[in-house]
């Protein structure tokens, strides 16, 4: 049995309490809506692309601690990176949260705090919602759903 503190690590609780980049972005060049119908998590992701670089990124919405913290950490992680780099991060993050809990995963720094969701299968979608929404924004798919 996994411990609750694996899921609700201090860094996650901190990002839930004080989400970073948590606001609208009036001069966004790309936006996308993410929605998890299972629990009602909803977020809007704003991207400002300068050439191929994510020069600014922000989000708004309501969701559980996992989805909010994941969105917050994601915005920190991709800001200043190229679209291709963010796409690579998406793949690595996705691999990390979907690897069975008994198998080793890559160290992704702060993002690794979310690897705990692997012990709580129904919560994987909470952690990945923001990332799917980011991918949609970068490819300009207007709406995504994790269902």
């Amino acid at each position, binding site marked *: *049995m996994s411990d*609750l503190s694996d*899921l*609700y690590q201090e860094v996650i*609780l901190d990002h839930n309490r004080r989400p970073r980049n948590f606001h609208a972005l009036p001069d966004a060049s790309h936006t996308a809506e993410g929605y998890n119908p*299972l*629990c*009602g*998590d*909803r977020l809007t992701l704003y991207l400002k692309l300068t050439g191929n670089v994510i020069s600014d990124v922000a989000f708004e919405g*309501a*969701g*559980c*601690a*996992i989805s*909010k913290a994941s969105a917050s950490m994601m915005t920190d992680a991709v800001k200043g990176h190229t679209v291709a780099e963010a796409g690579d991060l998406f793949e690595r993050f996705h691999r990390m949260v979907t690897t069975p809990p008994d198998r080793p995963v890559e160290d992704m720094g702060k993002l690794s705090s979310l690897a705990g969701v692997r012990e*709580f299968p*129904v*919560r994987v979608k*909470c952690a990945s919602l923001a990332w799917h929404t980011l991918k949609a924004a970068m490819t300009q798919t207007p709406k995504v759903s994790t269902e």
Partner: protein
Amino acid sequence: MIAGTAPAVFDLQRVRADFPILSRTVNGRPLRYLDNAATTQKPRAVLDAIASYYTGINANVHRGVHELSQQATGAHEAARERVRAYFNAASVREVIFTRNATEGINLVAYTFARARLKPGDEAIISAMEHHSNIVPWQLACEATGAHLRVAPIDDRGELILEEFDRLLTPRTRIASITHMSNALGTVTPVREIVRLAHAKGVPVLIDASQAAYHMRVDVKAIDSDFLVATGHKLYGPTGIGVLYGKEAHLQDMPPFMGGGDMISSVTFERSTWNVLPYKFEAGTPDIAGAIGLHAALDYIEATGLEAIAAHERDLLTYGTGLLQAIDGVRVIGTARDKASILSFVMEGVHPHDIGTIVDREGVAIRTGHHCAQPVMERFGIPGTARASLAMYNTREELDALGRALQKVREVFA
């Protein structure tokens, strides 16, 4: 209730012993099952009835002359009579077996309402319906050019009867209202709802999915035109539901689905329909499901529906007090007439996080919108955590929920 048979004294420990699943553990802790509004657990009598049907009788119904088929038919029709008696319908011709309550609502929406709804006509539901009592009416209105009207609820989660009455117009063709809200616990004044609608000549469907296992649901007293319920919330198996309809309506309605069992004769030129209730039961029915439901209703009556209701009332009062004593917890749904549902939010904590943390303590609750998104919107919240009660729950289980919620407080301190 059957005259002359006083129900046995309600013995909680004996009731609990009748439900095998209650002795299992979850995450190393005893199971505290508080998600009964989603589905109830099954007493051994139901499990045994299903097993002995498949072990000793299994055959198809209504066709074979052989002994097993006759026994299967007899058991299936005995179940129908059991359902008739439980809901006090006038005749077994008024009792249609469906898969679930949703199918019953769809049956009425397709075969009764769509024929009556013309462009500009109206159908009425309430603001606290489950999605299953919203979407079929949206589809019916979309297909016919009719409008869906929604009777509002107040801040307690009670239906505003005057507003419902005001929505009844000469264009109203049907009203479909819940007997008890799955998200709020509100019990609606169904007799008054039906009386108001009938005064304007409007037929009514009552969704008794939640009410039917908490209180006496008497279709003659309610006088609704239709009523639906589902077996798996009545301590019976999944896959079996009930549609009650007044015989005159059912006679006039065309079949819902075509196939075997619902016809009296078939040629390639035309087919003629079987008599009620079989006209609405195409194909091989869920025979074991009906037999399981029979055993479940027997079990409820033997335990005593009134005694069950009294026990659940005690738990609801106890649980409400317990929740209100926890810092930052707000109960959603405070109707004066309310049953068995404790829906709540906790300041600063999303319901989904509450659900995960209390699950670690072996406490099973539902979190989210409970298939009633408009209700959540009405209260301006993304969802709630919901503990819902059944006959086998205990004060100790609610205490466990309280302790688990203290843990939530600690994690999110």
